């Protein structure tokens, strides 16, 4: 295709005869030309439409072409500008090039000279567009609060881009910690509602009796404690987005009220008689499988179809490949800054461990792990032994034990590859090397002494705490942090154990 086959030009030239001449030249090259004589007219035209090329005389009756160039650079940077100058103003034309003009033509110039410049300008536009297209096709390492360039996340980004400007309800599904609220926020901020409010409501964290009032608001005296009128999330989200997190936890009775609200945009406050109408875009999320909830009768089918218009599935961290290290590096940098530390990266062992771990708590768990590492350690490199035991213990276990039968996941969005041993932190510590690596020994420790003999609780507690201290090379504050207790608690308990042991010895 000929590069000049179709292009639009705004020609700003105060001389009628030159304007007519240049228009003919440009038309001969395939351009669609609009000619204006004054700078003000040019600015008015630019407010209405943006041409491919702006052919701009520097000396105009009402303003300098340089002023128009400055406006174009700021407001319409995609327009390619060719300046026209007379001999006396070549210095200004050079300045114009520095200010972003593509080229300049010195009067008088013939059709060939103009044609070459126009072709060069269009070629450059074509290349710029090609680069932009190529760049947009490359994986984005960051997107509206997300970090990750895996294929799974690129798909999520593309979906968010596509749905952002729609009013269609979006339904986000994914395990806990995968970023469902980040996703809802991204949908809101990427679309035309970004200047409106984003109101998030967690249906699971609000008591059943209060959730209707939280969504729709209430009138004074509607129930005990309703001392004044109060706006609900629906009112506050007018012209914006209402994010209903953990939607599957919503009571069936309220689901029917929500359905009507979604269908009509109309609702009544609790205790109110007047109907209110709002313009709200709905985004819902759950870590359950919504259709399973419908089948089990816990979620209304009609509500499901209303909300589940555009499903967005957030991938668990374990399937995001190199995103784990990308996220870890980003978090390390962020927490370094917050905590005044100087970590520069991860050792290869630590990286391997991070990559191999199943991350049942997803990104939220990774955040906690990196925060813990940064707070409890100093240095330039995060080493394997700085990582919490729940990560390294799994590695040890995986290296020494034979494969365990697969556990049946409760549902798709609960972790499918959580560590097969206890996923609890204490369990991980107990599986550490201080108490051996065989499953038999672990079982003995978990129950107490040998032969299922029940022992006093303080002995079990002592063994757990001392085991943690041993795993931390005697570092009591670190063991305390990992055990989620204070170091002073450990010192106090040690004193108590000593007293108990002494009393047992003497008795």
């Amino acid at each position: 295709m000929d590069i000049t086959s179709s292009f639009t030009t705004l020609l700003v030239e105060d001389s009628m005869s030159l304007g007519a001449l240049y228009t003919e030249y440009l038309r001969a090259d395939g351009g669609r030309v609009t000619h204006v004589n004054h700078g003000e007219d040019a600015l008015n035209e630019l407010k209405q439409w943006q041409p491919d090329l702006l052919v701009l005389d520097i000396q105009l009756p009402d303003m300098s072409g340089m002023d128009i160039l400055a406006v174009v650079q700021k407001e319409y940077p995609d327009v390619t500008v060719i300046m026209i100058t007379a001999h006396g103003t070549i210095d200004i034309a050079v300045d114009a090039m520095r200010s972003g003009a593509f080229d300049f033509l010195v009067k008088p110039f013939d059709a060939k000279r103009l044609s070459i410049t126009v072709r060069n300008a269009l070629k450059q536009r074509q290349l710029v567009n090609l680069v932009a297209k190529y760049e947009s096709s490359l994986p984005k390492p960051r997107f509206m609060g997300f970090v990750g360039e895996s294929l799974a996340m690129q798909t999520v980004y593309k979906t968010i881009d596509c749905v952002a400007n729609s009013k269609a309800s979006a339904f986000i599904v994914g395990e806990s910690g995968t970023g469902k609220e980040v996703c809802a926020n991204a949908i809101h901020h990427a679309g035309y509602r970004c200047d409106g409010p984003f109101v998030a409501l967690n249906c699971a964290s609000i008591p059943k009796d209060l959730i209707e009032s939280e969504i729709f608001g209430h009138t004074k005296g509607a129930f005990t404690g309703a001392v004044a009128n109060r706006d609900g999330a629906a009112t506050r989200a007018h012209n914006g987005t209402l994010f209903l997190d953990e939607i599957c936890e919503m009571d069936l009775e309220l689901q029917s009220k929500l359905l009507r609200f979604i269908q009509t945009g109309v609702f009544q406050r609790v205790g109110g008689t007047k109907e209110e109408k709002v313009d709200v875009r709905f985004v819902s999320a759950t870590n359950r499988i919504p259709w399973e909830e419908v089948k089990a009768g816990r979620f209304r089918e009609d509500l499901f179809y209303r909300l589940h218009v555009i499903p967005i599935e957030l991938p668990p961290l374990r399937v995001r490949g190199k995103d784990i290290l990308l996220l870890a590096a980003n978090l390390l940098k962020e927490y370094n800054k917050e905590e005044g530390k100087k970590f520069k990266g991860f050792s290869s062992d630590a990286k391997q461990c991070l990559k191999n771990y199943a991350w049942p708590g997803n990104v939220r768990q990774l955040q906690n792990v990196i925060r813990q590492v940064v707070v409890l350690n100093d240095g330039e490199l995060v080493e394997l032994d700085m990582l919490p035991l729940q990560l390294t213990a799994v590695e040890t276990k995986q290296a020494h034990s034979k494969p365990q039968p697969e556990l049946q996941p409760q549902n798709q969005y609960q972790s499918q590859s959580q560590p097969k041993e206890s996923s609890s932190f204490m369990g991980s510590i107990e599986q550490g090397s201080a108490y051996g690596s065989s499953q038999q020994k672990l079982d003995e420790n978990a129950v107490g002494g040998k032969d299922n003999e029940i022992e006093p609780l303080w002995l079990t507690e002592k063994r757990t705490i001392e085991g943690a201290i041993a795993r931390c090379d005697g570092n009591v504050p670190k063991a305390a942090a990992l055990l989620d207790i204070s170091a002073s608690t450990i010192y106090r308990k040690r004193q108590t154990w000593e007293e108990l042991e002494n009393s047992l010895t003497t008795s």
Partner: protein
Amino acid sequence: MIDETILNELTSMLGEESIQRMLIVYTTEVEERLQVLTQVLQAAESANAVDFAEVEIQAHTLKSSSASFGAIEFSSQAEILEHAAKAHDFSTVIEQLRVVNDVGTKTLSFYSQRLAPQG
């Protein structure tokens, strides 16, 4: 006074019909701008002061458009006038306004002959 090469190039590039149209636009514009300059000259002669900015703008445009349509002599004289106006050189401006008017009129005469139907 007229560079025929430029006119011929324009004709071969745009065609006779188009160049005729262009020349009508050009000569109309020259007439209008010469009229403005004549008024400036009359005002200058009576008030002993000249609107240099107006002279500079008109001379600048006449210089560029005339060069593009082959009126080389007229373009050169307009350029001298533009520089004199820019330098606020009163006597040269007055003198050059008369020259420009004279050369401009001759130029218009040449183009009106060219535009006249060939009998």
